[in-house]
């Protein structure tokens, strides 16, 4: 086997040497033969003749020997390749069109595949990441809810399913004491097993142990590699030193390696990625029998062989036991979700839709290429007939034509790969900011392999039919038909028509997809969000330092800051609140309503917020009834509440609910009731949510507990850029030790909130544009080919008195049949396929009549325009030239 390979390789690589050796060998034989005859006394002339006779065809023997070398397939293929290159060079226009269209479509496929391969196919950057799961509570009201820490402690103690089980919760911290201005850092509080769950180890120091979970031991910190390098000069002796976080000394116990990705979380969410700066221990504080508070998220590593389902049943059994001990724990179930699905699940469908869309573009490009090749094969019939007549085998012809189409496909593929490399970079910048694993996307080895396979498949797909078709050439008829113009054979033109119809229908499908996405995007953009986003600056300020320990102290700071900001020139209103719309805030509570009983198994619930007097005015949220908060709504005054319209309508059936009362106390005294003083308009929870969930606001001076940080909202008249600096200046004038974070214009938040639908629309729109251009080229090609074949017919018609318009009508009516058939098929196909988009489009029916009608018209118009040029050409058919051509 090995010698065989070596032998073939030598024959191939040292072809010239092997050839000359063969020559010498045969020459020697020939001469020996002559010598023999001469020795026998035969005259030289006669000896020569006999030797030649005995020898047979010299070239034939050589050919047979080459065959015996086992290299003839490669050699003739190389010949075919050279021939194919010559063919392409001799017809550069044809080659350019076909290669460019293929390059664009293969490139688009490779680019989308790069995203899929990096986001969906590559495993997460944690060892044995398939065993990592996220753990949530679930109930009929809250499908995914954070865990209570004490519940977690019981799960950890009693469950057998996990190698390691941890909880984590957002714990941003303010770093000061290094040379620069204080900064807000992204942080998480984690229990001891957190990094063991992820399978990661600190590059310096160690992970937290159980003792760090005890109250009083929490002042330890693990740094990210980035923070360690950027703020601490990669100090190798940092372990054991103290740094100042939230104005308290923390001991550094570890430094994580680069590429420590945050697994993503829901509650005060931070998307998957390497944005976390530091981790501090989660400490268990408070009464373990009070389990109503849920703010930690579970993550665990399953033991080998344990399925998420088994783990879920085990946890449910434990939860049922806890439910008997603690009232807060009744009615909860557990949800165990693989981390992979948690991170990429949401983007999966969109990516597959995009892959489907580029796949269709590629099919159109294939049909296009096949069409062009078919047209050319007809003009090459004469050449093929000659080769057949000279004894070329049909399989050899098919092979040669296939090599041509493969060559075209591979050139297109190589160009496409280059385009994809550039395209992927553009793609990543277009991606929504929270798109999972965006920074991991690049053109990698699997993408190369994919492009290679796609190119090969493309080459065979568009080359095979024309090749088989061409090999069917009858040498006699081929020579004959090539000699004079005639109408193409019926089967061939039917095939070409079918290709055009499918191109038009696929383009139609893509355009409808793009149209639906555009409608959905416009709906989202033109949606009334419930607030006014223009000229609205937002920021976050946290008050971790001890001088703000009480709510009064903290609120005094925010009040002063708001007043100072309102005095800045150009500022209309400045307020503070617990959160901003559309930033993922989702804090809920159950409540009691005066005079009402919830249905059994259900409870009154709503999302809670905090607002200062000017919060709503600054955001531009309209007041429907009653009043906003005032400075008089302080802790000593009667307790008041503002609710949104959704809450008013859900629980009282009317939006005028001024004077109604709610409470959080199960046995309320008179002072525990909150009186509703205002009803405000709904703000959609997310840009794409159908409406708003019930929500209410406490007056910031009456908030029952302190928030980690508050958001500033500043409405200005002009939206001047200097306002951001003014905000920092005002904060630091009050307290230079505070960090100002998330300084952002609200319209940027709004713009970012539609990033995903915009991304999907831009891509599908691009693909659809490409598709319609390809379909137009295809239609143009087929019609102009048929016009050129019918030149004599048109010439005759013109000679017999046909008008220009008649000829145009003749050509267009032939084209119209194809175009209408294609459009009709496309519309039906789109009707079926658009169901896939259901979850991706907002407020548009997948069968939206406007989109279907306008796309149908557009396709017909574009395709007819594409046929207009060949139709015009037909009218110029000169009867004399046409007849002479016969």
């Amino acid at each position, binding site marked *: 086997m090995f*010698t*065989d390979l070596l*032998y*073939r390789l030598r024959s191939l690589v040292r072809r010239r040497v092997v050839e000359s*050796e*063969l020559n*010498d*060998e*045969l020459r*020697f*034989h020939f*001469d*020996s*033969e002559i*010598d*023999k005859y001469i020795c026998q006394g035969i005259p030289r002339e006669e000896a020569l003749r006999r030797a030649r006779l*005995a*020898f*047979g*065809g010299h070239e*034939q*023997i050589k050919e*047979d*020997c080459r*065959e*015996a*070398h*086992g290299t003839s397939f490669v050699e003739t293929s190389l010949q075919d390749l050279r021939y194919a290159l010559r063919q392409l060079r001799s017809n550069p226009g044809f080659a350019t069109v076909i290669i460019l269209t293929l390059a664009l479509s293969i490139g688009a496929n490779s680019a989308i595949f790069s995203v899929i391969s990096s986001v969906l196919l590559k495993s997460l950057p944690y060892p044995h990441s398939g065993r990592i799961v996220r753990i949530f509570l679930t109930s009929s009201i809250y499908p995914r809810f954070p865990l209570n820490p004490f519940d977690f402690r019981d799960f950890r103690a009693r469950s057998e399913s996990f190698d390691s089980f941890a909880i984590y919760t957002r714990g941003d911290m303010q770093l000061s004491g290094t040379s620069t201005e204080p900064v807000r850092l992204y942080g998480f509080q984690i229990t001891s097993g957190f990094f063991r769950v992820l399978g990661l180890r600190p590059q310096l120091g160690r992970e937290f142990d159980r003792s760090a979970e005890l109250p009083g031991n929490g002042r330890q910190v693990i740094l990210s590699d980035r923070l360690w390098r950027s703020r601490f000069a990669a100090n190798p002796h940092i372990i054991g030193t103290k740094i100042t976080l939230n104005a308290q000394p923390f001991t550094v116990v570890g430094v994580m390696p680069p590429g420590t990705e945050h697994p993503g979380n829901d509650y005060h969410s931070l998307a998957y990625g390497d944005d976390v700066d530091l981790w501090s221990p989660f400490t268990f504080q408070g009464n373990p029998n009070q389990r109503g508070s849920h703010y930690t998220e579970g993550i665990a590593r399953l033991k080998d062989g344990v399925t998420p389902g088994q783990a879920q049943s085990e946890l449910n059994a434990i939860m049922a036991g806890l439910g008997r001990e603690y009232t807060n724990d009744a009615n909860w179930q557990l949800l165990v979700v693989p981390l992979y699905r948690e991170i990429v699940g949401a983007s999966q469908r969109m990516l597959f839709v995009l892959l489907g869309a580029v796949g269709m573009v590629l099919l159109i490009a294939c049909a296009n290429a096949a069409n062009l090749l078919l047209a050319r094969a007809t003009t090459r019939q004469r050449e093929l007939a000659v080769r057949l007549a000279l004894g070329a085998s049909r399989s050899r012809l098919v092979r040669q034509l296939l090599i041509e189409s493969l060559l075209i496909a591979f050139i297109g593929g190589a160009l496409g790969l280059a385009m994809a490399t550039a395209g992927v970079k553009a793609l990543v910048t277009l991606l929504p900011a929270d798109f999972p694993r965006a920074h991991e996307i690049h053109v990698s080895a699997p993408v190369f392999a994919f492009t290679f396979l796609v190119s090969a498949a493309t080459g065979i797909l568009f080359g095979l039919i024309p090749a088989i078709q061409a090999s069917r050439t009858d040498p006699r008829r081929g020579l004959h038909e090539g000699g004079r113009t005639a109408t193409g054979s019926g089967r061939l033109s039917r095939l070409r028509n079918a290709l055009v119809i499918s191109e038009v229908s696929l383009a139609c499908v893509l355009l409808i997809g793009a149209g639906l996405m555009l409608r959905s995007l416009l709906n989202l953009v033109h949606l009334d969000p419930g607030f006014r986003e223009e000229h609205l600056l937002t920021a976050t300020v946290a008050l971790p330092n001890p001088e703000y320990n009480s709510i009064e102290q903290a609120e005094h700071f925010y009040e002063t800051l708001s007043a100072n900001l309102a005095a800045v020139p150009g500022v209309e209103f400045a307020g503070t609140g617990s959160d901003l719309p559309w930033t993922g805030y989702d804090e809920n509570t159950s409540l009691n309503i005066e005079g009402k009983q919830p249905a059994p198994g259900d409870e009154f619930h709503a999302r809670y917020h905090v607002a200062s007097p000017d919060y709503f005015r600054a955001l531009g949220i309209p007041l429907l009834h009653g009043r906003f908060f005032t400075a008089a709504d302080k802790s000593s005054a009667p307790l008041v509440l503002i609710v949104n319209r959704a809450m008013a309508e859900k629980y009282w059936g009317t939006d005028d609910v001024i004077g109604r009362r709610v409470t959080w106390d199960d046995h309320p005294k008179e002072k525990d009731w909150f009186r509703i003083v205002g009803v405000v308009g709904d703000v959609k929870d997310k840009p794409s949510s159908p409406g708003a969930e019930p929500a209410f606001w406490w007056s910031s001076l009456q908030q029952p507990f302190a928030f980690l940080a508050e958001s500033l909202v500043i409405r200005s008249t002009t939206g001047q850029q200097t306002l951001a600096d003014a905000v920092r200046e005002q904060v630091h004038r009050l307290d230079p030790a505070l960090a100002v974070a998330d300084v952002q214009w609200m319209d940027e938040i709004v713009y970012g909130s539609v990033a995903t639908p915009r991304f999907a629309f831009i891509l599908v729109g691009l693909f659809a544009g490409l598709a319609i251009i390809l379909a137009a080229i295809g239609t143009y090609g087929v019609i102009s080919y048929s016009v050129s074949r019918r030149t004599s017919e048109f010439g005759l018609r013109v000679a017999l008195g046909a008008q220009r318009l008649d000829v145009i009508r003749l050509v267009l009516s032939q084209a119209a049949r194809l175009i209408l058939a294609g459009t009709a098929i496309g519309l039906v196909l789109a009707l079926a396929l658009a169901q896939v988009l259901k979850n991706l489009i907002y407020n548009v029916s997948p069968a939206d009549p406007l989109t279907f009608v306008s796309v149908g018209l557009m396709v017909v118009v574009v395709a007819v325009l594409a046929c207009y040029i060949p139709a015009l050409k037909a009218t110029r058919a000169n009867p004399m030239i046409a007849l002479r051509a016969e």
Partner: protein
Amino acid sequence: MSPSNIDLPQGTLDLLILRTLSLGPQHGWAISERVQQISSDVLRIQQGSLYPALHRLERRGWIKARWGTSENNRRARYYELTRAGRKQLEVETDAWRKLAAAVAQILESA
């Protein structure tokens, strides 16, 4: 060509070449001469089949070729058996004998 020579059955050419080379290295012309001589002119190898066969055997690794000098002092390509070739010769000889015996038996009994 003498009227008495017959066409070689499929597969026998390789056997004849291997057998001839088992006596020692030879060039192509000598192989064809030797076969013709030994078979008293009954078997004659056509050059058209000899050289492709030699190249095929070489590819399979049963014979190997090197350049040498012929009796009349010319550069000639000599072939010799390899170890694998010797084994192959035994296998093929054995197979041939069995085949010949079987054919003879049938011919005699019929």
